[in-house]
């Protein structure tokens, strides 16, 4: 069938997922935190494992492992007038690509997709560079998606970090 790609998902689904990922990247770059929280289900999580082969975030060290409450706390912190380390200005630019739908539940439209990202961050007259892989576990609601779990595997996961990460990648 002409409108099916090799994973068995429709071209329309592929496009919708890509648009969702681009929108999420833009929300981060715009620091549109209210919209950021709305991307996640009520019990949704953002997870950056500390090891490449890590299978769960529960009970183990992680680089990020946050539910909406912790994300909300992080937002309140970075937007606080006394968040000194944010005073110098903080700007990011994300590019998301290589979007692959790994599996799709044909009944309810929930799906798992992987993608690759590059991100530059400007802060304190310095630019940093991150890259890695996103794995999104998405729940379909009407014509849109919400995130049940977002897994972020950064290329330099085990390396020394020059400074820290104040917001999600």
């Amino acid at each position, binding site marked *: 069938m002409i409108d099916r790609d090799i994973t068995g998902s429709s071209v329309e689904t592929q496009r919708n997922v890509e648009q969702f990922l681009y929108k999420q990247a833009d929300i981060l770059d715009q620091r549109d935190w209210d919209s950021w929280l709305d991307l996640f289900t009520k019990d949704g999580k953002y997870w*950056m494992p*500390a*090891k490449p082969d890590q299978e769960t975030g529960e*009970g*183990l*060290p*992680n*680089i*990020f*492992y946050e539910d909406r*409450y*912790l994300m*909300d*706390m*992080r937002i*309140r*912190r*970075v937007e*606080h*007038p*006394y*968040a*000194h*380390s944010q005073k110098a200005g903080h700007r990011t630019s994300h590019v998301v690509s290589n979007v692959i739908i790994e599996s799709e539940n044909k009944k309810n439209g929930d799906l798992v997709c992987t993608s690759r990202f590059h991100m530059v961050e400007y802060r*304190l007259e310095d630019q940093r560079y991150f890259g890695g892989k996103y794995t999104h576990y998405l729940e379909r609601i009407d014509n849109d998606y919400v995130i049940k779990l977002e897994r972020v595997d950064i290329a330099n996961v*085990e*390396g*020394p*970090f*020059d*400074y*820290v*990460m*104040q917001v999600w990648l």
Partner: protein
Amino acid sequence: MEFDQNFDLGTLVQDDRVHKACYADEAVYEKELENIFYKSWIYIGHESQVPNAGDYWTTWVGKERMILCRDDKGDVHVLYNRCPHHGALICNNHTGNSGNKHAFRCPYHAWQFNMDGSLRNLPMKDGYEGIIDLKDPQLQMKRAERQSSYRGFIFASLNSEGPDLENWLGAGGKSAFDDICNRSPEGECEIVANCFRIIQHSNWKTFLENQLDAVHPSITHHSTGDAASQMQKLYTKETGDEPPMGYQFLADFALPYEVWDSLDTIGHSYGHTQLAGYMGLRPRDPVTLAHEQVLTEAYGEKRMDEILSTNVHHVLVYPCLSVQPPLQQLRAVRPLAANKTLTEIWHFKLKGAPEGIYERSLAYYYLVNSPSTMVNADDLNNFRAVQDGLSLSGGGDWVSLHRNAGQDTIKDGVTTSVTGMSEQPMRNMFAAWKDYMSIGA
């Protein structure tokens, strides 16, 4: 700044102020390596970090690159990470296992070494026949000059002389490890095999000083403290449950000055320094009660009470460690340059303690010490600002340590601060620095 050979670096430290060269001058940093990092004991790692034969981790003593590893017999060794043949680094990864033979193999010319550093094999041996005995020490990986451990915590000294580890640690230094291990009903802890490494663009002393600086938390961490307090309320309002304990850890950073003022800092010999605790870690929640029970079964009620009443929030083992025993956190300080410091960040499990006690430790490790920290993000920012400011040639030469100078109590060589916000910890560490760095020391 250029110092001639006769300049006494000890004069950079006065009773209530220190010269900026202590932090920002590369020549002073080089001298610190020589006089402090290569003369005292430096923390290398924990025995449980290398559980199996062939396991290794790499780390630093000053600029020297070292290997911690375990051999077939179960012995642990600290070696210089250098092939005696052509000088290449033997272990090029942060951690790993040396393989089935439990032998390091140099990637350059395939010289092989046992885990104790002795030469095991090499290709084309006949080229050495009649020239040098393959058992000659100069063909072995060099071992640290001294190696010693206290309650499973392994230290090395690159100086073959000097006080032994226990005498050097003294009561102040030992408390870091006793207070972790005693909280286990088995008297032992186990490292969690995860090392977060964070580079700070600042001098190593700035980090240590900040750990016991009780004035800065409610200022530097105001934003995080506020955000955490707000979320505690919101969490309870929305869920009807108590918020996770981690929220309290963060909210505590914004405690009012009066609370910080009521703490004690205690200065010991060799610069080791303690901060008496402020965090309420003996609430009456089920996890704490279960912990009390297993400790009572192991040691009796009186001893359990002594152990859990130990109120030391933070111990600095000068010059290399920041330890938070009640939360089983450890940060090792590796000075890479005057203005560049690597921290290696670890946490521990208490053997035989309830899982919930580990969850507390993990929560603190995540929220405060991980690369996404909501706390150290602001500290590191200050450290960099301090380093940049101290590197200026104009604008003043001294760092003020005047707060409560001369008001602290000294008894039997132990200094107790008059208030928690006294700059006693900095003065105590600089007193040790002066001892190490003065001519004739």
